[in-house]
């Protein structure tokens, strides 16, 4: 069993006991524990079930690379799945639950999958669930969805109770990793006076060095580290942040770091996580290295751990992983674990070393001197046990397994397959790797570093992340990294370290080296995704030769750990199966973030009302108080309708339409885009932008215009008013103001920069109120101040004046078909004018109306709406707007495009009105069905609905749509399909102008 040792534990404070729960069971740990170490102290070796086979799994590692010990943390609004027990700092009251089990961790029904393992090889799902096709939707998918996924997603109805923030930093040097290499590099860089930010993902400085030991400059390494930290803390130009992970490196020195402020102390005030958005001149990746597992049968049974992790648990948290630990290795470093265990009075029955060395190395000799049996040239045949290790059976490494030489009882197996530098951050932005055959590792190629805006290398690795594996080499490389980053030469030598000389490792990708299929099917490569040696070999046999394809076929290296333990072993197996060299197979792509970061941190402060600022018109507050039902229009909010007490939305809309047509309606049209175009060449410029002629417009007059892009497609429409010889005011759609302004600027700056034209977006400078209906003139006359008579202000004219002393500009334009004045005022007067219109308008039955009434009234008149009748593929000719396309102009945007064969073909769908035979409302976007089917077996279509409403004026459903040969088929009845594809609605093709075809209402 695993227990807490009576003494020791570098990181724990035994005087501070902390209670926590695991699957509801109350347990106790110490301050300084991780959840993983606290669970081990309580003999909770079994921490979860695997993803596919539901095999019992325990903790393998002691840090960010942990694939197995994933738990759900917290409850309710603070529940979070897939948290690594190894990087979760214990606090009093922590609540954790294990994952992937039903009904319980100890007894799991899904574990039957492990008995079916031979029937569930790589690609099983792809192969099996192909047939019969109809089974997918109703049988396979629901079952797979039920069992798929790692942890449970938080309840969709809860809202994260914590807050998060973004933090911006600009530094000369960002050093990622606060191990001994990062500290040394940061100190050297700090001494140059440059601004340095040093981040470390754990709560502790020094990395592995305090556990691995050694001497630097004649002092124990822990003292040397304390000295480095003191020096760094004394430098004002250096910032240190622990619990802050370098998450990603991006173009031109941009980096993200993820700071966990209160995960270890949840009652702390302030944000929980902070995302650092850093722009750095140079980035040093001192990210260390990760030990590799060995691939032998049963290497996933709880109690099989990385040798370095066993060492960490003993030294840092005083954990005994069991009385007897067998070491299995292909290198010298694992011997340190044996020595550490021995020094704490624990038994090491055997070191199984795949190598056969001619003479003992220093560490080997030390182990032998402690009386540890060393089995050279041997391998683990298989691990005995199911929910925890009972022992190992050993065999010759040169064989194919099965010929067991000896069974050794033990509770823990400490394995080491060598070390892989953490090259993730180096690789994020394009740093390349070389395969180091001697050390069996990929390491950064310094000649192919990520490059910045001047073509300079901006990332440099330091220490173990650069492949330096002994203390002396690490320090030497850390000093060299400071030189590479700063461009300065060193002012003093690298510190001298005393460490044991190690014998070289021997690459071992499978154990024993000729392992039989029976062994390979139990040798796990990827614990998190349940990928075995046999799966990768099968993928290679089935032709998945690219490492990226093999990854996706087998799921090797996917999910939360992204293959931190499995990738190198996996691609070594793949290269073996393909008969290729490892560097030829290469690695999969390293993508940020290094380990998962919270969605909350990514969102930062951008949530709820500050997620996106809302634009409000000067009349917004009045509408809000008086029953507006809001809808988003770009960043604006516009009232869909303004409800009276007891009304449904539909009733309100119909009332608004009716009242506007019969009496008087007011619309807040302030969101309408307003662009002033001014200059000697303004007319010439607008002639290029609009399809019709604008330069001939007389001051005082308005003209409706269409705007196409160079592809000929309609992009915007609106009324243009000529203010004076050099000045036009262009109205755009509410959603189009910003991009039409940008469009104008683009052409003025980049194509016609020699034209004398200036554009200003004055959308928010003016409020605009549409006064609409038969009583429109009466209310303006009642207010008084300017002549708005038929003679003085004719249709499509505008005039400046005053209404009750408020300076106004009145446009006599109509989007409803009624007598209508659109009144523009300075934004600061808009509310005053609105209030005046409402109070004086009472006698004329004034009512405000919203966007839905606006849409219905324009549809009744057959006016098009950008975004309804147009979708980026519609040209003005499709909408029968030939009258608005100039034939005289030599050039305008879209003119050449309209001559293209596809635009000129006669069978383009064209705009018509549609009247359902039974008076019902056609579904929006419904397709008109034709005869026969197309090449894909789908029903042929001959048109579609673009706008559809119930017209309160006509008391029936009306619609507009684009129909094949539509205008030539007036009176014909065509069929539209409902969304079920079978129910049909008959509709007659009619003129799109449903109401007041002669325009008598607006022309009074």
């Amino acid at each position, binding site marked *: 069993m695993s227990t807490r040792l009576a003494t020791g534990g570098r990181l724990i404070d035994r005087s501070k006991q902390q209670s926590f729960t695991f699957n509801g069971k109350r347990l106790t740990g110490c301050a300084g524990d991780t959840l993983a170490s606290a669970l081990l102290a309580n003999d909770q070796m079994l921490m979860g079930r695997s993803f596919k086979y539901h095999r019992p799994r325990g903790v393998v590692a002691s840090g960010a690379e942990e694939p197995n010990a994933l738990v759900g943390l917290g409850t309710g609004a603070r529940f979070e799945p897939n948290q690594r027990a190894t990087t979760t700092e214990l606090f009093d009251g922590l609540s954790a639950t294990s994952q992937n089990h039903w009904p319980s961790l100890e007894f799991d029904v899904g574990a039957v999958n492990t008995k079916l393992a031979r029937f569930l090889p790589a690609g099983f799902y792809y192969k099996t669930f192909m047939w019969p096709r109809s089974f997918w939707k109703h049988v396979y998918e629901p079952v797979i969805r039920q069992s798929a996924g790692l942890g449970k997603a938080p309840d969709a109805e809860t809202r994260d109770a914590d807050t998060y923030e973004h933090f911006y930093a600009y530094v000369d040097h960002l050093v990622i990793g606060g191990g001994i290499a990062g500290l040394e590099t940061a100190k050297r860089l700090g001494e140059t006076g440059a601004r340095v930010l040093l981040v470390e993902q754990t709560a502790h400085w020094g990395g592995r060095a305090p556990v691995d030991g050694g001497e630097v400059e004649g002092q124990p390494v822990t003292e040397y580290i304390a000295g480095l930290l003191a020096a760094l803390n004394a430098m004002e130009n250096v910032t240190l942040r622990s619990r802050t992970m370098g998450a990603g490196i*991006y*173009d*031109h*020195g*941009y980096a993200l770091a993820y700071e966990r402020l209160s995960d270890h102390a949840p009652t702390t005030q302030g944000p929980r996580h902070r995302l650092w958005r850093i*722009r750095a001149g140079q980035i040093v990746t001192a990210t260390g290295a990760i030990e590799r597992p060995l691939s032998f049968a049963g290497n996933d049974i709880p109690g099989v751990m990385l040798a370095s992790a066993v060492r960490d648990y003993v030294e840092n948290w005083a954990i005994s992983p069991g009385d007897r630990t067998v070491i299995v290795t292909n290198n010298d470093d694992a011997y340190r674990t044996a020595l550490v265990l021995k020094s704490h009075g624990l038994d090491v029955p055997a070191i199984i070393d795949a190598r056969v060395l001619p003479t003992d190395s220093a560490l080997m000799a030390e182990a032998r001197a402690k009386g540890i049996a060393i089995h050279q040239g041997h391998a683990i045949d298989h691990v005995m046990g199911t929910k925890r290790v009972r022992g190992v059976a050993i065999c010759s490494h040169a064989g194919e397994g099965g010929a067991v030489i000896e069974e050794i009882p033990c509770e823990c197996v400490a394995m080491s397959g060598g070390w892989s530098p953490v090259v993730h951050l180096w690789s994020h932005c*394009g740093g390349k790797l070389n395969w180091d055959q001697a050390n069996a590792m990929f390491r950064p190629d310094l000649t192919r570093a990520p*490059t*910045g*805006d*001047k*073509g300079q290398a901006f990332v440099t690795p330091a220490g173990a992340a650069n492949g330096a594996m002994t203390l002396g080499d690490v320090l030497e490389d850390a000093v060299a990294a400071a030189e590479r980053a700063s461009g300065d030469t060193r002012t003093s030598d690298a510190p001298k370290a005393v460490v044991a000389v190690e014998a070289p490792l021997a690459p071992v990708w499978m154990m024993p080296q000729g392992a039989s299929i029976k062994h390979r099917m139990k040798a796990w490569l990827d614990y998190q995704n349940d990928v075995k040696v046999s799966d990768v070999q099968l993928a290679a046999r089935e032709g998945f030769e690219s490492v990226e394809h093999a990854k996706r076929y087998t799921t090797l290296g996917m999910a939360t750990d992204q293959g931190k333990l499995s990738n190198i072993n996996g691609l070594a197996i793949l290269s073996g199966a393909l008969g290729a060299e490892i560097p030829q197979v290469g690695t999969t792509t390293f993508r940020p973030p290094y380990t998962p970061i919270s969605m909350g941190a990514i969102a930062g402060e951008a949530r709820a009302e500050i997620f996106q600022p809302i634009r409000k018109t000067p009349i917004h507050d009045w509408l809000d108080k008086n029953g507006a039902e809001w809808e988003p229009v770009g960043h604006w909010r516009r009232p869909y309708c303004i409800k009276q007490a007891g009304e449904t939305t539909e009733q309100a809309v119909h009332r608004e339409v009716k009242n506007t047509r019969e009496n008087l309606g007011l619309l807040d049209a302030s969101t309408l885009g307003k662009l002033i175009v001014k200059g000697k060449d303004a007319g010439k410029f607008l002639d290029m932008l609009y399809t019709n002629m604008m330069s001939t417009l007389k001051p005082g007059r308005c003209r409706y215009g269409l705007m196409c892009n*160079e*592809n000929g497609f309609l992009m915007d429409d609106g009324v243009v008013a000529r203010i004076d010889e050099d000045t036009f005011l262009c109205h755009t759609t509410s959603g189009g103001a910003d991009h039409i302004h*940008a469009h104008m*600027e*683009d052409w003025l*700056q*980049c*194509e016609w*920069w020699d034209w004398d034209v200036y554009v200003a977006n004055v959308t928010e400078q003016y409020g605009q109120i549409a006064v609409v209906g038969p009583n429109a003139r009466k209310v303006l006359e009642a207010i008084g101040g300017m002549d708005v008579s038929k003679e003085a202000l004719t249709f499509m004219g505008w005039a400046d004046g005053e209404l009750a002393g408020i300076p106004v500009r009145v446009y006599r334009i109509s989007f409803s078909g009624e007598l209508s004045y659109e009144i523009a005022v300075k934004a600061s007067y808009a509310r005053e004018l609105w209030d005046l219109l409402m109070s004086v308008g009472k006698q004329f039955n004034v009512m405000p109306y919203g966007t839905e009434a606006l849409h219905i009234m324009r549809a009744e008149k057959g006016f098009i709406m950008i975004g309804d009748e147009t979708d980026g593929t519609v040209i003005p000719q499709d909408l029968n707007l030939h009258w608005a396309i100039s034939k005289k102009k*030599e*050039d305008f945007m879209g*003119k*050449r*495009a309209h*001559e*293209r*064969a596809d635009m000129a073909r006669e069978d383009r769908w064209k705009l018509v009105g549609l009247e359902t035979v039974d008076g019902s409302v056609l579904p929006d976007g419904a397709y008109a069905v034709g005869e026969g089917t197309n090449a894909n077996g789908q029903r042929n279509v001959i048109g579609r609905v673009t706008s559809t409403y119930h017209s309160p004026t006509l008391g029936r459903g009306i619609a507009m749509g684009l129909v094949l040969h539509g205008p030539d088929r007036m009176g014909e009845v065509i069929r539209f399909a409902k969304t079920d594809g079978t129910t049909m609605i008959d509709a007659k093709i009619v003129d799109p102008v449903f109401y007041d075809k002669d325009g008598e209402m607006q022309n009074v």
Partner: protein
Amino acid sequence: MLTLHCPNCGIQADETELAPGGEAHLKRYGPGSSDDEFHSYLFTRENPRGPHFERWRHAAGCGKWFLAARDTVTLEVYGTYPAQTLEPPQDIKDAITAKHPGWQWREFS
């Protein structure tokens, strides 16, 4: 997350301040052009591995368009220059030549 120097306001602008505008130095074809010319103006774009000329707008800054010579592989920026420039300035061409002797991009080299 690129940074580009805005030649109008002089700021080393972060990519979040910038809006991309596609390829630079396009020649506009209008009425009277052949189908091939117009098609190529609308749709045919360079897609190089290496030096490329692009349009950018300092959208969340001064609002001005400018042009950039940028390496699509190394992300090196050879230079930025005002949008009202008909061909890349000589110093930028020289900077590209230093890294890519004999380079060619449309009619420029």
